[in-house]
């Protein structure tokens, strides 16, 4: 018996054009799954799809800021693709702003994309006929959800909201045999991280410093996501699983 086996499973991945979403798509496909990839970056998606095996994989370019359109889009997509066994949400924007430059509007925009789209997608994929029993949902959180640092109020709040929603929804949806969890990375080597480094210049990255196993790779996080999608993680629900290179423990 293989611990990581997703043969014949159908998995939806958002934010799949780059970084963690992309590596997750590649990995779950290698493990036998058929995937639907959603991102705003159509070209990026095409490249990822081209690297996957099997004929059933699909991609859709969609701006997840448009929450109102998600329901009809998902219903349409799943009508063709079939009910899901997994859903991984890797869409989110980082933001760094001092308090003096914060505004409710900004807070709201970040909450809407990072958190609102997640809950709305969960609501839609857990509608009858859109999922199979044993559906596993994974959201990408952040150590910012649990530890405070300056300038990341909006981002941290949105991630804490996601972790909390997962605790509530895991209980609410348990009777439908659906599990929800988040993965909690610290710094991961993604395009977003590369941008952050450019911004910081010479300034020390405090998070990286505490992450004593060093900078994570998207593929490392994808491994944990894959495990959470598989039957082997069947007892894990409502949890926030650290993928943080030791950050939270020290």
């Amino acid at each position, binding site marked *: 018996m293989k611990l990581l086996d997703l043969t014949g499973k159908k998995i939806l991945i958002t934010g799949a054009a780059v970084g963690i979403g992309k590596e997750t798509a590649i990995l779950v496909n290698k493990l036998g799954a058929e995937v639907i990839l959603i991102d705003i970056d159509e070209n990026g998606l095409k490249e990822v799809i081209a690297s996957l095996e099997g004929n059933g994989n699909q991609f859709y370019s969609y701006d997840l800021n448009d929450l109102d359109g998600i329901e009809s889009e998902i219903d349409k997509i799943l009508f063709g693709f079939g009910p899901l066994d997994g859903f991984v949400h890797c869409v989110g924007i980082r933001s760094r702003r001092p308090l003096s430059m914060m505004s409710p509007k900004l807070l709201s925009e970040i909450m809407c994309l990072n958190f609102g789209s997640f809950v709305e997608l969960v609501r839609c994929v857990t*509608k*009858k006929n859109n999922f199979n029993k044993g559906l596993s949902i994974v959201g990408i959180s952040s150590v910012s959800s649990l530890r405070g640092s300056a300038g990341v109020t909006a981002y941290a709040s949105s991630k804490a909201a996601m972790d909390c929603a997962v605790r509530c929804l895991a209980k*609410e949806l348990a*009777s439908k045999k659906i599990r929800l969890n988040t993965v909690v990375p610290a710094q991961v080597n993604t395009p977003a991280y590369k941008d952050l480094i450019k911004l910081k210049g010479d300034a020390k990255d405090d998070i990286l410093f505490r992450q004593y196993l060093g900078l994570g790779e998207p593929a490392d996080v994808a491994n944990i996501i894959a495990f959470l999608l598989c039957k082997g993680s069947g007892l894990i629900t409502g949890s926030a699983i650290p993928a943080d290179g030791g950050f939270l423990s020290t």
Partner: protein
Amino acid sequence: MTNKEKIRLIEETLELEENTLTENTMLSEIENFDSMTKLTLIVLCDDEFDKKLTGEKINEFKTIKDILDFMD
């Protein structure tokens, strides 16, 4: 809204097949009729009919008809 339409709305909200429910269906017979189902009906009454159904009240209802009557 006619009673037939209300029943259909309840069926859709609870994700039940069309024609699963009739006015005389006992609530206790409905698949998975638990506290979450009751809460869903409470919110539905508020959203669609502007009626404040309470937990205490819904616990007194026996059939679908009781709910339909409340919605009026």
